[in-house]
């Protein structure tokens, strides 16, 4: 009950911030539109809608990190969290309360992306549902990463780290904009160690119905999700104690 009350509050805080919300939900859609338009005018298959959309959904999740981090950092900088630390809310209530409302927002964002892509020529099949479900581990990774950044940094730093750095990293290292095979070298190796490319590949595989490939790529994403969630919980509880 306590945790649900706090989760509802967090959800309202995010959904009532129009600039963040419009940017977070709108930007991936604009990209989808723009890259599809580019594809229509080039002779090679660079941004085909059936491979582009799953990638864009993964890239869009980096904005969820920004939402999550900004909310936690703002709360930490305001006296509200101080007040709430003097109430019966436990550390568990806080962590789940922050994470819970972001999961439906993340899934909603992915669903909107797929729906938006349908009139642009996306193949409609049952695989879209699998792809939406398959994005959950990466969504948890992004939410936890936000909780971690929000626990460690202030609002301004979060804007720079999650708003600029992470979204760019996610874009370059997920292979959404360009095929990492073409670049090769250290960039490809680095990407292989991080979850972004695996999440994008898993999403593409789920969308095309290739469950075997999807499973092999989802495993490292789940591993990263667990690792980052554990680190985020540790850091949040540590800063809570530091109060």
């Amino acid at each position, binding site marked *: *009950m*306590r945790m*649900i*009350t*706090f989760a*509802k*509050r967090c959800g*309202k*805080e995010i959904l*009532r*911030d129009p600039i963040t919300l419009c940017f977070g939900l709108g930007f991936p859609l604009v990209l989808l539109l723009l890259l599809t338009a580019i594809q229509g005018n080039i002779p090679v298959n660079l941004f085909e809608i059936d491979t582009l959309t799953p990638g864009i959904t993964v890239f869009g999740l980096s904005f969820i990190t920004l939402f999550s981090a900004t909310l936690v950092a703002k709360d930490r900088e*305001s*006296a*509200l969290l*101080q*007040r*709430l*630390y*003097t*109430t*019966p*809310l*436990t550390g568990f209530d806080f962590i789940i309360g922050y994470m819970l409302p972001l999961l439906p927002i993340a899934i909603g964002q992915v669903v909107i992306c797929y729906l938006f892509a349908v009139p642009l020529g996306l193949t409609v099949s049952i695989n879209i549902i699998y792809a939406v479900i398959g994005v959950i581990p990466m969504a948890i990774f992004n939410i936890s990463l936000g909780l971690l950044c929000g626990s460690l940094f202030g609002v301004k730093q979060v804007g720079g780290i999650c708003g600029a750095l992470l979204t760019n990293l996610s874009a370059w290292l997920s292979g959404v904009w360009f095929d990492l095979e073409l670049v090769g070298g250290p960039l490809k190796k680095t990407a292989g160690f991080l979850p972004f490319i695996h999440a994008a590949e898993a999403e593409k595989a789920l969308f095309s119905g290739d469950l075997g490939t999807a499973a092999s790529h989802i495993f490292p994403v789940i591993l990263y999700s667990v690792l980052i969630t554990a680190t985020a919980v540790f850091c949040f509880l540590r800063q809570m*104690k530091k*109060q």
Partner: protein
Amino acid sequence: MYAIKAVGLTKRYKSITAVGDLNLEIKEGELFSLLGVNGAGKTTTIKILSCLTKPTDGDATVGGFSITKEPDSVKRLIGVSPQEIAVAPNLSVKENLELICGIHGFSKDKTAANINELSDRFDLSGCMMRKVGKLSGGWQRRVSIAMALISEPKILFLDEPTLGLDVIARHDLWETIRSLKGKVTVVLTTHYMEEAAALSDRIGIMKNGRLLEVGTVEELKGKSGTDNFEAAFLSIVKGVGTCE
């Protein structure tokens, strides 16, 4: 029975002693003010007593529960209004009050009844559906204090509650605080002497983390041999060495 009893309460930050060897007893229903200049240790004391900060040494019981061993029990009894305005800015006044009621596990009926009561007491009915972040600083402070009261605390900590309020709002709040006397134990920090004198049953004067004197206004005046409370405060505070 004492609502609050602190024994040897100490908080050190590296070489700085924010609160040193604080021994204090506050009776149930008493309105106790901690008075002191900036950096005296008033806010740190409140933070320790409200389980926000752990003491380096010593312990205190709040409502009969140890702040170091039973913080969860303490948190069910207290309400805190921090020095800074502590509200959720994108939520309406009503939603902010509902948030605290929900955290304390109140039923819908009890939540509605408490919101109605505080709405009347703080004159909030006109702005109940407005986002708190859009209200003026004075109104945000009212909401912040109402949030501390809505959980029906047995012990209420008010850290500089009238900071930034205009004269009328300040006097309105004084009336509200007075109306709590005898029903709720109130610990209030302030650096306004007239506020401490007007509201308190007893006053504790702090400087450099030390509690220098405790007593009623008359007792403190008597101890310093003056009939003016401000002069008594200055005499007590200036009679001790300066900060570390």
